[in-house]
């Protein structure tokens, strides 16, 4: 499972559907004068902690990189729950705080969504990013039972991207109105688009634009 789940590029989009100028050579072109000090591309990352994770759950992490001081682990979807439980309960430095969970849409990829988790460990005082690639019809295991804070965060991802979660206690829209059709943060959802039927029925106006 490990290799198929991995999208073509480990970090960041190489294909840019909306912005043609940077497509292709984005990673190699030094942008502005600023890239002098910090490396412009993610580098492979390794640590004792990652080795331990690999030993206990072989095949769960398909790639580990570091960029701007923050390590990123690509996790296979089937292993996500196990990896998170392990990271949360790891005695060496438990990642007890789920800071954020969000998604990014890459419509051209085979698995279009990246679900991104930002974890923080009070003991180790460091942050870790987990990434999972998910296709449009796939369900993601819900992490509400690991970190209760995932409840609203997952609802927001569902609301904005239409990603379905498995095992979420109350998966419904959170910021958009309940009856809204469409997922606004998808890349194919134009910024001026709206659910006209909803607007006409509920706001009694022709258009909200």
């Amino acid at each position, binding site marked *: 499972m490990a290799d198929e789940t991995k999208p073509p590029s480990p*970090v*960041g*989009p*190489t294909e*840019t559907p*909306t*912005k043609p*100028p*940077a497509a292709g050579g*984005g*990673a190699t*072109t*030094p*942008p*502005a*004068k*600023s*890239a*002098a*000090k*910090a490396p*412009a*591309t*993610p580098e492979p990352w390794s640590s004792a902690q990652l080795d331990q994770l690999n030993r206990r759950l072989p095949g769960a992490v398909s790639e580990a990189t570091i*960029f*701007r001081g*923050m390590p*990123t682990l690509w996790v296979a979807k089937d292993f996500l729950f196990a990896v998170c439980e392990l990271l949360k309960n790891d005695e060496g430095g438990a990642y*007890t*705080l*789920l*800071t*954020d969970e*969000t998604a*990014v*849409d890459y419509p051209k990829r085979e698995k279009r969504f990246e679900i*991104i988790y*930002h974890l923080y460990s*009070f003991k180790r*005082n460091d*942050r870790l*990013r987990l990434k999972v690639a998910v296709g449009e019809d796939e369900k993601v295991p819900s992490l509400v039972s690991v*970190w*209760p*804070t995932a*409840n*609203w*965060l997952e609802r927001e991802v569902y609301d*904005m991207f239409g990603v379905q979660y498995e095992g979420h206690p109350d998966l419904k*829209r*959170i*910021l*958009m*109105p309940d009856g809204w059709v469409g997922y*606004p*943060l998808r890349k194919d*959802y134009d*910024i001026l688009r709206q659910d006209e039927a909803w607007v006409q029925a509920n706001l009694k106006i022709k258009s909200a634009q």
Partner: protein
Amino acid sequence: MTEATFLDSNEILINMGPQHPATHGVLRVKLKLDGEKVVGSECVIGYLHRGVEKIAENRTYQQFAPYVDRLDYVAAVTNGMGYVEAVEKLLGVEVPARAQFTRMIVAELQRIASHLVWLGTHALDLGAMTPVFYTFREREEILNIFEKYCGARLTTHAFRIGGLQYDLYDGFETDVRKFCDYFPPKVDEYERLLTTNRIWMERTKGVGFLSAEDAIALGVTGPVLRGSGVKWDIRKAQPYEAYSQVDFEVPIGEHGDTYDRYLVRMQEMRQSIRIIRQSLEKLAPGPIFGKVAKVIKPPVGEVYHSIEAPKGELGYYIVSDGSTNPYRVRVRPPSFVNLQAFDRMIYGRLVADVVAVIGTIDIVLGEVDR
């Protein structure tokens, strides 16, 4: 939630908000009541949703900066600071020392201003009319400094990616020093009004209890987390700007109730004054802008950067595809995540405590709904 109700009466469902003076904006709460006891609640949010994250994808990095001021609009400076720092981290740019200390001074003033709004409205919600007049009087002084510095009082857009747009105006240091001398006695004054006030203590002690474990599990950050006794402040744990060069304490509470969170925020205002004083000492003449090109095109990659905003951890997750517009900007708002703890904090308490708990979380709906 299906336990037997008091006197076998039926549970009633009441709706609070979105138009309600004590919900601090357009928060709507559905409360399930058994008599006067709250046995369940659900927050309904989104009334102020403006799609800020979508807007970001359609603007350049610089163009998006003023939008973040409209998230937590009572602490626009810290919102802007988090965003510009995140972009700077993505670019790998160092900001000159003068700009860093200036940012810290302005951001700490903003923290005080934000806490003053919280204190005034929180006290007003609980029936203490006087503090709001006092706190807004002091907040006015801060906003006057903002206005002289960058021309705006509320949505300031005070900083730019790479540094500052303007150097400090003549007399900035005098103004800030004057405020630093003027303000601590005022905090004493608020404390005289509230800290040992019997009504205040009755209304806040033991109300909205949140244990440290629950707070962490629910992802709560900022003064609410510290009120539960967790000594964690991003300014100390993962210092940004020049916070590692100043000396200050992180106040924490013991009981995790509304009263402790009140004490924590009062102490934080005093600590902010300490930070401002030290930053003023270290403020030396020098450049105010780092090496940033006019057209910002960060390398392909992603960055997560978070700061200690007045309300908790404010994080920005930015994905760049190498073009002038961000591919994705995610705002991790403290208010949104903290509000999730509301249900836990109010469960089993009286309906009169609802406004106390909403107040103590210190939410701004612009940030909750984005």
